[in-house]
């Protein structure tokens, strides 16, 4: 076991998180959130998505500012590469979620972090999306994430941070487990 004397400063307000956990235990309705994005086609495979607000704690919220994300396909797909490929956004989401979790768990366990670097790689056989082989799935055939972490903790404690973060990660769950998806359309 690693000994910790000082209080770690990872910039995570653990007291607020633990307070929310306690408060939401008895307020199941407030715990229901809705995450939202809108998007609009630009040209070719170029698309622009916007994230502005979300719903939670029984009310609407706005982000501090509106965020815009350009997605496109790379030039080898005969596209213009005006942004990251949509599947890469999935990796971006996974990295963001796992790393936020690592910081929160580290703070809760009073482990000082110095650097947390992740490398992510997803395998995909594009015979799936091209419809060449019906036995090949469209999506990833696996994702590999490697964390390189500098922290005041043993290798085993760091492994435990990363494991606990996966256990509590929303994006890890979204990717690793089936989710029901409904897509509708209307003519404007």
């Amino acid at each position, binding site marked *: 076991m690693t000994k910790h004397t000082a209080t770690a400063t990872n910039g995570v307000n653990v007291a607020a998180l633990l307070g929310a956990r306690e408060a939401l235990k008895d307020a199941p309705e407030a715990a229901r959130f809705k995450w939202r994005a809108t998007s609009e086609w630009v040209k070719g495979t170029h698309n622009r998505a916007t994230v502005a607000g979300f719903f939670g704690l029984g009310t609407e919220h706005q982000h501090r500012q509106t965020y815009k994300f350009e997605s496109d396909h790379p030039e080898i797909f005969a596209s213009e590469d005006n942004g990251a490929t949509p599947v890469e956004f999935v990796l971006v989401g996974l990295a963001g979620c796992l790393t936020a979790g690592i910081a929160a768990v580290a703070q809760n366990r009073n482990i000082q972090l110095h650097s947390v670097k992740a490398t992510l790689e997803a395998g995909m056989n594009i015979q799936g999306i091209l419809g060449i082989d019906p036995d090949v799935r469209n999506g990833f055939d*696996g994702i590999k994430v490697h964390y390189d972490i500098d922290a005041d903790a043993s290798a085993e404690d760091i492994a435990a941070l990363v494991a606990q973060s996966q256990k509590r990660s929303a994006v890890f769950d979204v990717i690793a487990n089936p989710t029901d998806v409904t897509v509708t359309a209307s003519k404007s």
Partner: protein
Amino acid sequence: MSESASRGIAGTADVVVIGAGHSGLAMSYLLGQRSLRHVVLERGEVANSWRTERWDSLRLLTPNWMARLPGYPYRGDDPDGYMSAGQAADFITAYATYTSAPVLTRTTVTTVAQSRHGFRVETSRGDWLCQAVVLATGAFNKPVIPRLAEVMPANVEQLSAHTYRNPRQLSPGGVLVVGASATGLQLAQEIQLSGRPVTLAVGEHVRLPRIYRGRDIQWWMLATGVLDQRIEEVDDPDRARRVPSPQLVGTPDRATLDLNVLQGQGVKIVGRLMGIRDSVAQFSGSLRNVCALADLKMNRLLAWIDQWAESNAPSGIGPTERFVPTLVGETSQLELKLGEDIRTVLWATGSKPDFSWLDLPIFDRKGDLRHSRGVADVPGVYVLGLPYLRRRKSSFIHGAEDDVRELSTHIADYLDRSTSQIKSRLRSVAI
């Protein structure tokens, strides 16, 4: 006049204990020592569920020398063995005889409701009026089966650990065992060895070696104080109470049963069962992480044991050991065709108590009994034997004693208070 008020009264008591298993009998013994008038109501025979609701090969997860009830240690000639369900039932029945417990067998409680001065316990053989009620009907009355079971294809047979007895019940062909607790692993092993290929769906689990440094792991957990850890010392009590039973089995060769052993015997491991779509079972991609978590937690416990052994130096122990990490293949399988690959699904997804016969305002929004360490939210109602009720050992046979000592004191104080309240009420009427 209500229907119940017109029913026959079988008797009155200070305390009615419901259930003549080890917890109810231990409570009865201590209530008797305090000369509290009580009766133990039992729907079947003493230790009923041990005789009727367990699979054939079940053995206790604790060695015999640990089996003890208040005033009654294990006296048999196989201290390092593990009791079968029948032997556990015999042990408990012998205790009932030894303590001359006031048990009424074949008396099924149908309702418990509040009455004017306490409770009315309605049974198949008349009603009991009492001041306090002890729920000792056990923690494992009914299987917890995920709602996914409802969309299982009709050509797949479904069993739970409650309805499973032995592999001969199962059709030939593949079996999916869902759940990686002691139950899931034990049943996966025996079914695989019966010649039916088993796939085991693994969520969060607790890995433990049977023997560590020459001693039973339960010896270490007892010696180091792990089993005595109190619920109020735990960071997350709700979670502690939900932790599945550790992957252990009690066999004559005291062998370890873990996912590596099972894979060596041909069992295929997959992630947690998350969905069924078009007769295809979908498994979580989190298998690697749940195995990593279990390995980390086991190693933390072993490090704690080593630290304790260092400072306490128990005699005759072996050198420190570390075990091979749980092996997870390069690619884990995410889907299985139900009906083709799998003919039978065995739900080893846990059990819960059945308190549906309580007509009391005592349940939370999820339908669980509201209580604080066995003292229910309705004054005068107590519950025993639930996982981590007061201590980590609460649901074990040897765990009953400490809980029952403390709760019987609470009951005695409660009865004193309610008696003095009635007396003061009578005085005010007299004035």
